[in-house]
C-alpha cells in the first residue's frame, strides 16, 4: 500500500483531470437555463465535493472492517485519515452549496433533503472524531471507533433511499423544479462532470496518503506498524 501511495502516476492523473475541469468547466458550452444562468458551472466544482466525500467515507468504512478482521493498526490509520479528508470535502461541499443556494434558491439553508442528509453525514463523522479523541489507548481507540464507524455508516441507509423523498427536493431528479432536470441529461456536461469527480477524489486520496505516510514515520502510535 505504501508503494502505491508513493507512486506519482495517479497524482499526475489527478492534476491532469483537475486542470481539464478548470478549463473545460469554465469554457465549454452549458445549457442556457433560467435562474441558474452561468452558475450551472458550479456543478463541476460543488457536486464533486459530495461524491468525493462519500467515496472517502466508503474507503474509511472498508478499512474499519479490515481492522476488526485482522487487527492491523495501520488499517485504523487509513480509516481515520480518509474520514478526515472526507470531512474536509464535506465541509467544503456544504459551504459551496450554501453560497450557490443563496443565489439560486434565495437562502443558504432551505431544508432541502440532500442538504440535510449531507449535514447528518458530517455530524456522524465529527462524532467519530470526538469518540476517537476521548480514548487514549491506541488499540482500544482503533477497535471502538471501528465499531462506531461501521454501525453509523449503515444507519445512514434511510438517508440515501427515503428521506430525500419525504419532501420535494430542490435538487435535480427529485420531482418539482423542471428546469433543473435538464442538466441531468446534458451529455456535454457529463464530459466535464465525471472527470471532475475523479480528479477531486484522487486529490482527496493524495492528501490523506500524505498524512498517513507522515504518521507512519512520526506518530509513536503507528510507527512500528507496516502497511
Amino acid at each position, binding site marked *: 500500500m505504501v508503494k502505491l501511495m508513493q507512486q506519482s502516476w495517479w497524482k499526475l492523473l489527478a492534476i491532469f483531470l483537475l486542470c481539464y475541469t478548470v478549463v473545460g468547466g469554465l469554457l465549454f458550452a452549458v445549457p442556457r437555463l433560467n435562474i441558474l444562468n452561468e452558475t450551472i458551472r458550479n456543478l463541476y466544482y460543488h457536486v464533486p465535493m459530495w461524491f468525493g466525500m462519500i467515496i472517502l467515507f466508503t474507503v474509511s468504512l472498508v478499512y474499519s472492517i479490515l481492522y476488526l478482521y485482522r487487527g492491523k493498526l495501520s488499517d485504523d490509520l487509513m480509516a481515520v485519515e480518509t474520514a478526515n479528508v472526507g470531512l474536509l470535502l464535506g465541509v467544503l461541499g456544504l459551504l459551496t452549496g450554501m453560497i450557490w443556494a443563496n443565489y439560486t434558491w434565495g437562502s443558504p439553508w432551505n431544508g432541502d433533503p440532500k442538504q440535510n442528509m449531507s449535514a447528518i453525514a458530517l455530524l456522524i463523522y465529527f462524532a467519530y472524531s470526538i*469518540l476517537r479523541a476521548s480514548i487514549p489507548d491506541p488499540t482500544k481507540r482503533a477497535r471502538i471507533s471501528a465499531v462506531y464507524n461501521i454501525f453509523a455508516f449503515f444507519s445512514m*441507509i434511510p438517508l440515501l433511499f427515503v*428521506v430525500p423523498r*419525504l419532501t420535494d427536493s430542490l435538487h435535480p431528479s427529485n420531482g418539482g423544479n423542471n428546469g433543473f432536470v435538464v442538466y441531468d441529461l446534458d451529455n456535454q456536461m457529463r464530459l466535464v462532470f465525471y472527470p471532475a469527480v475523479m480528479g477531486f477524489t484522487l486529490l482527496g486520496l493524495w492528501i490523506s496518503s500524505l498524512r498517513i505516510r507522515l504518521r507512519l514515520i512520526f506518530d509513536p502510535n503507528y510507527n512500528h506498524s507496516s502497511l
Partner: protein
Amino acid sequence: MPRLLKEIVWLIRKDLLLEWRQRYALNGLLLYVSATIMVVYMSVLQLKPATWMAMLWIILLFVSVNAIAKSFLQESAARQLYYYTLVQAEAVILSKILYNTVLLLVISLLAVLAYSIVLGNPVQHKGLFFWAIVLGAVSFSNTFTLVASIAAKAGSNQSMLMPILSFPIIIPIIALLLSISTASITGKDSNFNNNLQVLLTINIILPALSYILFPYLWRE
C-alpha cells in the same frame, strides 16, 4: 442456539431483577418524563397537531437516550468481567436490546398517556398511532443499545458521548417515525408503505450489525 437462548433469558431475568431492586432508576425516568412534559406544557400550552407529534417524539428521544445510556453503566467493570466468563457476548447484546425494548415500551406508553392528558390528543387512527409508538421503542432500542456500549467502553465522559454519538444516527430514523406517526392524524400518504419498509429494514440491519460488532467491543 438453545444455549444462546438460555443465556438471553437468564440475562434478561437478571436485568429485570436489578431494575426491580433499584427502583430509583425507573422512578427517575418516569419523573424525567413528567417534568419534560410539564416543561413543554408550560412553554406552549396549545399545540398544532404536527407540532404535537414532533414534540412527543423529541420527548421520547430524550427519555430513550437517558434510559439506555445507563444500560451498560449500572454494573461495575469487575462484574462485567464475571459475566464475560459465564456467557457469550452475543447473548449479552441481544438480551440488552430485548430488555431495553421492553423498558422503552413501558416508558413510552406511560409518556404518551401523560402527554395526552396534559396536552390533549389529536390522533384519529388510534391503532396506527399505537404501532408507531411500538415501532419507535423498537427502533430506539436497536439503535441506542450498541451506541451505549460504545460510550461505556470509551471510558471517561460517557454521559457526554452518548447523545453526541447517537443523535446523528437517530435523525433519519426519527424522520421516518415522524412521517409514519403523523399518518395517524392526517391519514396515509403515498410514501407511507415505502417509509414503513425502510424502517423495518433498518430494524433488521441494525440489530444484525450489533450482533456482529458487539463481540469486538466486549473482548478486552
